[in-house]
């Protein structure tokens, strides 16, 4: 019983972390309809950026925040390229876009291997390696930090999308671009900006990734399943849903890990994804 309670609490913390690494995808795939399978690769890129700044003595969270402007520009550039070469040419943009982002994944992975090698990397900070004792439980501080940041990220993004003019235009853009033009907003600029924001948030989430555990260049493959599972489970584009879906995935993985062993854990995300697509394709909070 204690074991199960431990699993649930740990799953809750990890789940919020899963939400944080997924919010960028929730914007790019959920709201903009861009098949952004390179999202986890950008996450790992953010983790390595954090690693480099950390070696120069920066705090990892601060490093993640400092990476955001550069990631914003990266996102804008990638979207611009995707738009000019694929999306603008119409109908089968989805499938060809998938091939494009698959290519981006390989470029990022190979680039990271060439620069950093295949060894695992980690960061140092006062809160890494310590834990907080709550009753009989010991909660790792690095997970608590990631948990807090996850809340800040999802709530911040959710407020931005619902309270600002640009945010609302981002929510509307995939629904009807012509109508958005009639509101006086340029759909391509809105999407470009939104993709920039999604990528900037992913850069910061990358810092959380390397705070939570060591990172190697191909760790993104584990996160393709997890991030897409969270976004689909949440209901495309729902930020509050992302938090709930992250927690569901976190707790499920944690319980499976405890009861069935580590080898089953990776199956959880795809399992949940398939079940969700089968019984409620619009997701928990889908409109």
């Amino acid at each position, binding site marked *: 019983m204690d074991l199960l309670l431990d699993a649930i609490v740990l799953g809750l913390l990890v789940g919020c972390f899963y939400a944080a690494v997924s919010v960028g995808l929730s914007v790019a795939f959920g709201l903009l309809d861009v098949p952004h399978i390179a999202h986890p690769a950008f996450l790992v890129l953010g983790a390595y950026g954090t690693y480099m700044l950390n070696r120069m003595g920066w705090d990892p969270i601060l490093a993640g925040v400092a990476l955001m402007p550069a990631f914003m520009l990266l996102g804008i550039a990638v979207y611009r390229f995707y738009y000019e070469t694929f999306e603008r040419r119409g109908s089968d943009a989805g499938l060809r876009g998938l091939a494009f982002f698959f290519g981006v994944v390989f470029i990022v992975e190979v680039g990271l291997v060439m620069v950093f090698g295949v060894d695992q990397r980690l960061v140092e900070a006062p809160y890494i390696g310590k834990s907080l004792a709550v009753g009989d439980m010991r909660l790792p501080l690095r997970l608590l930090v990631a948990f807090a940041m996850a809340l800040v990220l999802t709530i911040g993004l959710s407020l931005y999308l619902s309270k600002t003019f640009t945010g*609302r235009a981002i929510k509307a853009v995939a*629904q009807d671009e012509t109508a958005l033009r009639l509101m006086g907003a340029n759909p391509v600029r809105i999407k470009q900006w939104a993709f920039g924001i999604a990528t900037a948030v992913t850069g910061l989430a990358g810092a959380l990734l390397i705070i939570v555990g060591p990172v190697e260049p191909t760790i993104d493959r584990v996160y393709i399943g997890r991030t897409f599972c969270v976004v689909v489970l949440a209901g495309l584009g729902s930020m509050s849903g992302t938090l709930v879906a992250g927690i569901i995935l976190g707790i499920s993985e944690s319980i499976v890990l405890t009861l069935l062993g580590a080898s089953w854990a990776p199956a959880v995300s795809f399992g949940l994804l398939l079940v969700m697509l089968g019984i409620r394709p619009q997701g928990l909070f889908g409109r």
Partner: protein
Amino acid sequence: MALELTIENIDAGYGAVRALQGVSMHVGNGETAALLGTNGNGKSTLMKCVMGMVRPTRGTLMLTIDGVEHDLTKLSTEEIVNIGVAMVPEGRRLFPRLTVEENLLLGAFRPQARAEIAKNASFCYEAFPLLKERRRQLAGSMSGGQQQMLAIARALMSSPKLLLVDEPSVGLAPILVSQTITKIKELKEQYGLTVLMAEQNFHQAIRIADRGYIIVHGEIVFDGNVAELEKNDLVKNYYLGTAA
């Protein structure tokens, strides 16, 4: 505030298909002009030309607001919206998975409208009390008539000076058509708008119009004030199908 829309001799089309041929129109300040014609005669194309969504291959489209001339053939749709033109598009084109309130707030996207958001919103909710009641409901879940109300309200949220309404009666029950048309007239008077409305329903449209233009196969075949329209033989023959 003075406004004047002058359309001179425009041609427009889609590829090899000619949709408009030598169309000229003039909408004066505070007027309601009705563009009348059945399906496929070029009404929507003309509206889209004014909004910069279809580019004419020939002719001029000038909008003068307070003495400033704007060449609409050179401006993007967004820029045209920004100078104070709003369109209620055919088929309404709401954002179905956003709430009524979110749709209205998107209507106020243009910078000049943001300052007037509170005033415009309370005005819209007063004109359409149902929208206030349902402001948290998804736009896509409302009935056709309610959606048409929302589409009109959303256009008004941009504080327009010129309002284009493309086929407000499509898909509505007769009683709703009449209500919608009456509402457009009320709003026009309260807001001091100039209105260009495309409509197939002749009798409803001329109830509120000052001037009517009849478009057949992409050409204006007759224009005149309402009294002239009603007694014209050509109108009876070509448009109403009730030859004398």
